[in-house]
């Protein structure tokens, strides 16, 4: 197992390097320029200087190397400094990846966006899981019952209707008509007491539910399939032959086995939490990381796009690994294999 993890880690490195290169190169090809937004009156030499101050104007490979250094050395150092309040080396001198649109360090922008992303997207993922797993279990256990049929239908609806539509519908119903919930998320809201907590709940309600519906739809399908698979296994019959209660058969014998693929699937989905849910964030103005990415794309803020994309790639690779490790932890056949 340990060997396996190490091996996977070793493979992850070239994969990430390849991805970083592809991302950097592709985005570098994009016909955009930080000086594109500058007024036309600025002379060409000044433009050139500005480009250089933003780290452009050098050969491709040097820029790539610098970017990698910024990503893997400078920014982590900055984060450590920020977290522990220490100063390591000449922190002022360190070159940072800067957004072209705001001229501020990309990492700061990302950190600013994390709380609402985690609150809304993370919570919706969690709620989605919490809804999906029981539904999946019951659907499988009572296969072809009305509950199963309904669950199948609802989850397919949840999967097939675009979130921009469900989101808008929710706003029209809950914000415009009923006036119960705010349609715009306040990212600066702080929870200090019960009433502000209530406000937070209210403002999260719609985006979280819209997303949770979508997530739950997928996970419950998987859960159902996994439980169905295991219910027909011989060991279930053995467990019953021992005189165990159905509850125990289901929750100890079947669930353990069924959760193995589902847990890894859930782990694989976690990067999407960090990636945000672009459309939902945009509709409810949650302004999380997904929104940051789409603004960056639309504004052709290449450094921000590069960094965010690569960050997602890193997360995906890491969580792929975590999913594998989880698989091993949950499944003794692999743990001791």
């Amino acid at each position, binding site marked *: 197992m340990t060997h396996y993890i190490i091996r996977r880690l070793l493979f992850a490195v070239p994969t990430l390097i390849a991805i970083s290169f592809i991302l950097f190169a592709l985005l570098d090809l994009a016909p955009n320029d930080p000086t594109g*937004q500058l*007024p036309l009156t600025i002379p060409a030499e000044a433009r050139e200087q500005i480009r250089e101050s933003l780290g452009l104007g050098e050969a491709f490979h040097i820029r790539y190397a610098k970017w990698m250094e910024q990503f893997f050395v400078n920014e982590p150092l900055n984060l450590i400094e920020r977290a522990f309040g220490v100063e390591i080396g000449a922190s002022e001198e360190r070159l940072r990846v800067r957004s072209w649109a*705001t001229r*501020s360090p990309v990492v700061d922008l990302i950190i600013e966006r994390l709380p609402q992303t985690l609150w809304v997207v993370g919570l919706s993922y969690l709620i989605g899981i919490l809804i999906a797993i029981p539904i999946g279990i019951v659907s499988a256990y009572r296969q072809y019952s009305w509950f199963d049929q309904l669950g199948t239908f609802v989850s397919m609806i949840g999967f097939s209707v675009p979130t921009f539509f469900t989101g808008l519908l929710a706003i029209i119903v809950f914000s*415009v008509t009923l006036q119960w919930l705010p349609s*715009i998320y306040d990212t600066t809201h702080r929870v200090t007491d019960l009433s502000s907590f209530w406000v937070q709940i209210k403002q999260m309600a719609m985006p979280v539910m819209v997303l949770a519906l979508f997530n739950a739809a997928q996970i419950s399908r998987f859960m159902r399939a996994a439980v169905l698979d295991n219910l027909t296994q011989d060991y279930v019959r053995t467990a019953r032959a021992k005189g165990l209660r159905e509850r125990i058969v289901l929750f100890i014998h079947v669930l353990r086995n069924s959760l193995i693929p589902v847990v890894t699937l859930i782990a694989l989905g976690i990067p999407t939490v960090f990636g945000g849910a672009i459309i939902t964030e945009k509709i409810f103005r949650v302004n999380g990381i997904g*929104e940051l990415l789409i603004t960056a794309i639309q504004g052709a803020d290449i450094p921000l796009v590069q960094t965010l994309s690569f960050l997602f790639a890193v997360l995906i690779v890491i969580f792929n690994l975590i999913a594998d490790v989880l698989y091993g932890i949950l499944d003794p056949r692999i743990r001791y294999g």
Partner: protein
Amino acid sequence: STTALAERGRDGQLKILYWQAVSTVNPYLSGGTKDIEAASLVLEPLARYDETGTMTPALAADIPTVENGGVAADLMSITWPLRQDIVWSDGTPFTAADVVFSAEYCLNEEMGCNPLSSFTDVTKVEALDDHTVRINFGVAKPFPYGPFVGSTSPILQKAQFETCTGAKAQTCTEQNFRPIGTGPFKVDEFRANDVIIFSANENYREPDKPAFATVTFKGGGDATSAARAVLSTGEFDYAWNLQIEPEVLEQMVANGKGQVVAGFGTMVERLVVNQTNNSPDLSKDKRSLHLDGTNPHPFLSDPAVSRALSLAIDRQILVDFGYGAAGQATCNVLPAPPVYASNANDACMTQNIEEANRILDEAGWLPGDDGVRERDGVRLSILYQTSTNSVRQGTQALIKQMWGQIGVETELRNIDAAVFFGGDPASPDTYMKFYADIQMYTNNFDGVDPEAYMANWRCSEIPGPENQWLGGNIARACNAEYDALAAEMAVTASLDERAAIGKRMNDIIVQNQYVIPLIWRARVSAHANTLKGVRVNPWDSELWNIADWHR
């Protein structure tokens, strides 16, 4: 609330929604209206325009004129007297040094100053004393109110920005995100492209203002949902730039939570008619290039064609479809201020298909087999481009159909706004490159004086590789009479004479169909019924009088 209870911050929180989120609070670094207007809560210029277009002093004690001696008789300098009672929000006094610094800040070439055009011909800015500043020009400036008038070029605090000049300006995140100002509010929290929290500036010069203790300035989303948040759900007090189909807006207003306000400035949605040949078969060094008139457009250089195109358009339909009360049909590129508005071209206000057809018939453009007019093998087939925006695409579709009625074939193309208006010299899709026959966009000018704006149509302003495509004469029209008028305007001081010249210039552009004006557009915003004191201002920041807003 009543004015009797005149106490700062008495009305609590004000919530403003700009669907384009603010990316910086330093207007010198951004040309984006959203950024400039957000900054106008904090940073103030010497003078600004009110909603009628009249210049009013802000940080200046008075508006300098030739009459009061503030503007030199030779028009080579302007001397601004500054108010003595102003302090920055950090409590330090505002002095002439700050003004001088702000000018140097922008004039530093390495810095990439956005409102650089306001500083054209400025040679030197000097502090005559602590509260007097003189701006010297290299040429005679009949209209010397470029620098520090209006919210595009406000005054920065020297103490804060001193270390942030030149190339470093770009990376001074703290300063750019939280500038210290003299305005009614100060920045408490800035989240790029998301939200800004302002709070009332305790050191603001009027003790009873602003009425709001805090301002939440939220960004993101789209115009429709922004309007919904003000008009339908009442979550926000003010929403900006609502270019939305009128029927949708009407529905929202019917909810009774707020109202829509519009202010007509100089914005004109227009078709720019390419005077040069832009055929994709041409090589890069010929395509859409003026080449001293040797590269004319195969059919748009024929005035008959472009006149017919203009006549075939029913502008009122376009207004009804996409603008409603926020637009008026127009036949001028210079519709305002009123003194400049010409009425020589009003014939185009009504659609006249027969007349258009007659003109084309007469000019020898006859319908071919497929109904498309042609002459000598040249077909009237137009590539018509604009930026991506649902109202613009609707307009495109409508115009395409109208032109179809006079036997003109149209291919539509829309380009992402960031690319279309972006300045990348390498991109073939910018409006400056103009690799199309006709393109549509809106243009206007800051303030009330059209001189710089009208100067755009001079022959020397034709974009091309030699000026990195940076000219303003997008239509690539060259008219000697026009150039002469432009030169005359630059040395004319009298408003009446300037107006006459301006009208004449407008007529030349329109009558030669370099530009086909369509709609005079208003700035449209919405505010809650409870919000009082909003005076929508098309000449300056919409939030120019936010200090007076109250409930």
